[in-house]
């Protein structure tokens, strides 16, 4: 009987293991609820709000991933975002970063998929760095902090993304496409 239970446990473990981290955080909420219920309630509201804002980017990301899996082969990705893509690759990764929307963690599965298809670390880091620039939010930025600051900030973001991408490509080894 014990052997059967152990067998069932072994079969269930791969399904449970990925959920240990969120379950750990849920435990923290439990502790928080006992020690500081008001703050925990506020924290829960914040999490719900983040989840609500995630729905659209996640849907967008999923659609893009399916399209990417369907149409892009490692060969094509390597051509546009691989080692030999040159200035074209830099431009494409920057533009993709600028146009991407939503929190970065909604994009990780796509980044993983892109990496597996042959996108270099440089282009991935540049893509992620350029996400700081949001064309739709530019009027808000100008309204809050002035056009001079907005202009300098956008240039700083582009320069920062490029430099970080250079550092990443220098220190991280590339893995071959799957």
């Amino acid at each position: 009987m014990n052997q059967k239970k152990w067998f069932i446990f072994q079969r269930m473990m791969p399904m449970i293991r990925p959920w240990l981290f969120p379950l750990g955080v849920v435990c923290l909420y439990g502790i928080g609820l006992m020690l500081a219920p008001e703050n925990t309630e506020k924290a829960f509201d914040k999490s719900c709000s983040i989840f609500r804002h995630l729905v659209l980017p996640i849907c967008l990301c999923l659609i893009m991933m399916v399209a990417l899996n369907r149409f892009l082969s490692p060969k094509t990705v390597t051509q546009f975002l691989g080692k030999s893509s040159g200035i074209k690759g830099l431009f494409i990764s920057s533009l993709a970063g600028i146009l991407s929307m939503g929190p970065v963690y909604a994009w990780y599965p796509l980044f993983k998929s892109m990496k597996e298809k042959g996108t270099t670390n440089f282009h991935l880091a540049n893509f992620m760095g350029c996400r700081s620039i949001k064309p739709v939010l530019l009027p808000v930025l100008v309204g809050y902090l002035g056009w001079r600051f907005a202009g300098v900030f956008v240039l700083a973001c582009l320069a920062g993304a490029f430099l970080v991408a250079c550092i990443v490509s220098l220190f991280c080894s590339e893995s071959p496409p799957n």
Partner: protein
Amino acid sequence: MKIAVPSTEPTLEGYVANKIGTASYLLIIETYDMSFEAIDAPSQSSGAGAGVRALSLVMDKGAQVILVGHISPFIVNGFADQGIKIVTQVSGKVGETVKNYMDALDTRQNNPDPQPETPSSQDQWRAAMDMGLRQFRAFLPLVTGVVLLLGLFQGFISEQKLVSLFSGTVLQDSFWGACMGSILTGNPVNSYVIAKSLFSMGVGISGITALMLTWVNVGLIQLPAEAKALGTGFALVRNLAGFIMAVIISCVISMFAGGWI
């Protein structure tokens, strides 16, 4: 010719498994005399990796054909490039299936068909959808954990507590601004609002620039998720470089363009 078949039993009387990753045994059958070798299939506890390891195992054994119930058309194409044929939608007893395949092969050799078999567009869409959902499902627990952790952080640490860290010196303000931006996250608009309120409280341009630069680029809380997606080395180097770069750039801006801005 060697044919690999994922099976429910270690004999030719077993049934062809629907997926190679979920089979209990892998049979490598020599069609010349129907002799076979039964190998224990890789454990399913390795999740999606079990299929890949099973495929690599049958390749090592020199199989030229794989008969299976279902497999992604992408894998079929990939193996075809390497000269290994994968035949899908196969079911029934292993021994009978192999004999049927050999009979069909003999018939085809007598009447060769020049058209190669390619998966239909519908199959390719289905496979792309399956792959996308599988990739996303793998990330769902981690994203859930990160979001819950973010909420916890934002619920317990007030903005006032964080503002009190800024002292007024360029380097220190840049550092604390970058720290704040690395921990907090969310819509960039929030960083604009916080930057504006910090600015009106007297925090220098270096502090708010560093905060805004790291807000999107550096994420301490989502670091485990990034490490899982792109590797620990990549995540650490990128976040650390982003942090240092934000401090340097904001100091430079403050020193050279602070008055103009």
